[in-house]
């Protein structure tokens, strides 16, 4: 516990990046973390094959709708944080993951296509909450956002979501070379060097704020 699922039906929204930043950030704080790769492309598994994984961070791959519940059940009994990275499609695995989760994150870029898919995902979460009679907190996360400003379309979208009672994380994951570097170099933000990617300091501050806010949201949800 807790189980955090990162999902949206849109591909390329930043799910895997958010999973890696959160997972490695929590592991750096000393927590035992398991990342569950439920994306058929297995991006986390491929990352783990090259990465110098800390001993308290594990990655479980080949997870499908057939075994996702058992995998979450097994890992939640072993580690403090289970993070599930789901495929960017409307799939049954997401349904199972939602019902097992303490928090759901929906990465969103400021495009209409992303917003439509995020809205579809949120409706699905609401529906599953009713089905299982369990209130599942969900937060939309601005991902791959411009560093210096919020675009007009982003502001408009944010307003519409908030008017519909949907909460955003205050922290935005900014589009940064350093975050791509985590994947490209099979590293963690802590391991990367300025020779490999620029702007590491800002990226680390951004990732740390993201991890800290997730913990605050989890604490709030436990009250």
């Amino acid at each position, binding site marked *: 516990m807790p189980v955090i699922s990162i999902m949206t039906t849109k591909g390329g929204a930043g799910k895997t990046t958010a999973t890696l930043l959160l997972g490695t950030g929590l592991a750096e704080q000393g927590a035992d973390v398991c990342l569950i790769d439920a994306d058929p492309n297995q991006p986390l598994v491929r990352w783990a094959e090259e990465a110098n994984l800390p001993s308290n961070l594990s990655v479980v791959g080949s997870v*499908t709708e057939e075994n996702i519940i058992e995998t979450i059940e097994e890992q939640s009994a072993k580690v403090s944080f289970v993070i599930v990275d789901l495929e960017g499609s409307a799939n049954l695995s997401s349904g199972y993951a939602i*019902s097992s989760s303490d928090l759901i994150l929906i990465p969103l870029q400021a495009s209409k296509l992303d917003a439509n898919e995020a809205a579809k995902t949120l409706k*699905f979460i609401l529906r599953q909450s009713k089905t*299982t009679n369990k209130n599942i907190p969900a937060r939309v996360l601005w991902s791959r956002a411009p560093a210096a400003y919020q675009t007009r379309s982003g502001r408009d979208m944010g307003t519409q979501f908030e008017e519909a009672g949907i909460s955003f994380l205050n922290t935005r994951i900014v589009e940064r070379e350093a975050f791509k570097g985590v994947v490209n170099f099979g590293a963690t933000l802590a391991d990367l060097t300025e020779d490999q990617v620029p702007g590491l*300091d800002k990226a680390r501050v951004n990732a740390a704020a993201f991890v800290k806010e997730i913990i605050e949201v989890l604490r709030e949800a436990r009250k």
Partner: protein
Amino acid sequence: MTSGKISLDLDEFKPQPVKIDADSRAQIREASDNAGFTGRHAVTKTKPISQPVSAEQGEGSEVKRRGRKRTTGRDVPFTVKLRRDTNNQIYDLADQLECAAIAEVIEMALQALTEKIARGEPIR
């Protein structure tokens, strides 16, 4: 600038098994289907769908050998901002030299520059 180092007290978050019973699973599956969340992972094939065709098979039998794609070894992206006239010059040279890729112009330019340096000729 801060270093991005944080210190969080995570002691309250302990392993705690999640349990989803069979009835709940059935409900979730039904609700997912009704919501259009019907995607299933593809079943992994244990054997490739078609066997690769060897060169001998292709030449001697009716099975045609596919044309081999020429590999260039160019697999590193290179993005750079240029002045418009420099950009035009590269494309003009590519046309003039009938290059198959813009990379060829850059490779030839580098070769020419390297030779010029080796001959001790002034560069700028």
